[in-house]
């Protein structure tokens, strides 16, 4: 028995075949034992399924039942669309915290600006360069800076004394 014949048997059982074809199938099942056995099995299966299938019955009319579901859906949808209520504290916190942070940064910047020594704005080289003032009008000062060692030499000399004490003048600054 091929698949087409099996489907014909199923259609016969479901009453979907024309009368002439149904008669042919009936006579075929009477002649063929295999076909008769399959038909009997299909009938049994159908009966078993029919018995186990739950029979639900609505307490009200079908249209009324679905309209209730529709109303319930419509009732719930607007609730989901409404934004959660924002409390005054939440709103304040949302804006207050960034405002406090920005204020703190500004204050920190101002403190840093006004507390850092005036020379901090200059380069390190400028800060390390000595400023020398001589006390006497006829005196002079020679400055030598060893940047790699961080050493500054400032040698004061009085013009009138230079000839008398040449030994005090650094040899390399003559």
């Amino acid at each position, binding site marked *: 028995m091929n698949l087409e014949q099996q489907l014909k048997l199923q259609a016969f059982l479901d009453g979907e075949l024309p009368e002439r074809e149904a008669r042919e199938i009936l006579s075929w099942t009477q002649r063929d034992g295999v076909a008769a056995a399959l038909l009997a099995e299909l009938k049994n299966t159908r009966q078993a399924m029919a018995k186990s299938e739950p029979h639900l019955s609505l307490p009200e009319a079908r249209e009324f039942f679905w309209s209730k579901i529709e109303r319930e859906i419509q009732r719930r949808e607007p609730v989901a669309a409404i934004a959660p209520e924002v409390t005054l504290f939440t709103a304040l916190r949302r804006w207050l915290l960034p405002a*406090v942070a920005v204020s703190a*940064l500004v204050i920190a910047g101002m403190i*840093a600006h006004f*507390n850092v*020594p005036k*020379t901090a704005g200059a380069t390190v080289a400028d800060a390390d360069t*000595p400023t*020398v003032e001589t006390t006497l009008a006829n005196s002079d000062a020679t400055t030598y800076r060893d940047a790699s060692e961080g050493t*500054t030499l400032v040698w004061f000399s009085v013009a009138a004394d230079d000839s008398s004490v040449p*030994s005090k003048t650094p040899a390399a600054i003559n």
Partner: protein
Amino acid sequence: MNTKFFSATRLVCAALFFFLLAGASAHAADKPLKLEAQLILCSNDAPTNGRPVTPEIEKKLKRLPLKWQHYSVVSAQTFSVAKDESKPLVLGKSELAVKNLGGERVEVTLVGHGKITQSLRKGQMLVTNSNDDACLIVVRQLD
């Protein structure tokens, strides 16, 4: 769209961090300076007496255009000077005053000669002449 590039809490924490950092920096700039002034005798002969200068000072002095080769400590004074305050010192025949200008800057006044203003961070050294023969004065910040 509810994208947050940074949270407000993190922003506040960062602000506080920078605030404290600025405060700490400002405090460090104003702390008293611990300094040392030395009167150093210079010669071209190996010193027979006197304490030789530390290798660090000797190395720095030998890099300067001075005609001497040997240096020994005649006297030394260690002192602390607060910001905007001045410390008078006498080293041999020289009188000097060291003023803390803040921010690791000092003003060294050598009485009768002049005034030197410059930074004096750790590791830096200021050398100037003295009223004593063949002597010089070294001012540096102590560790």
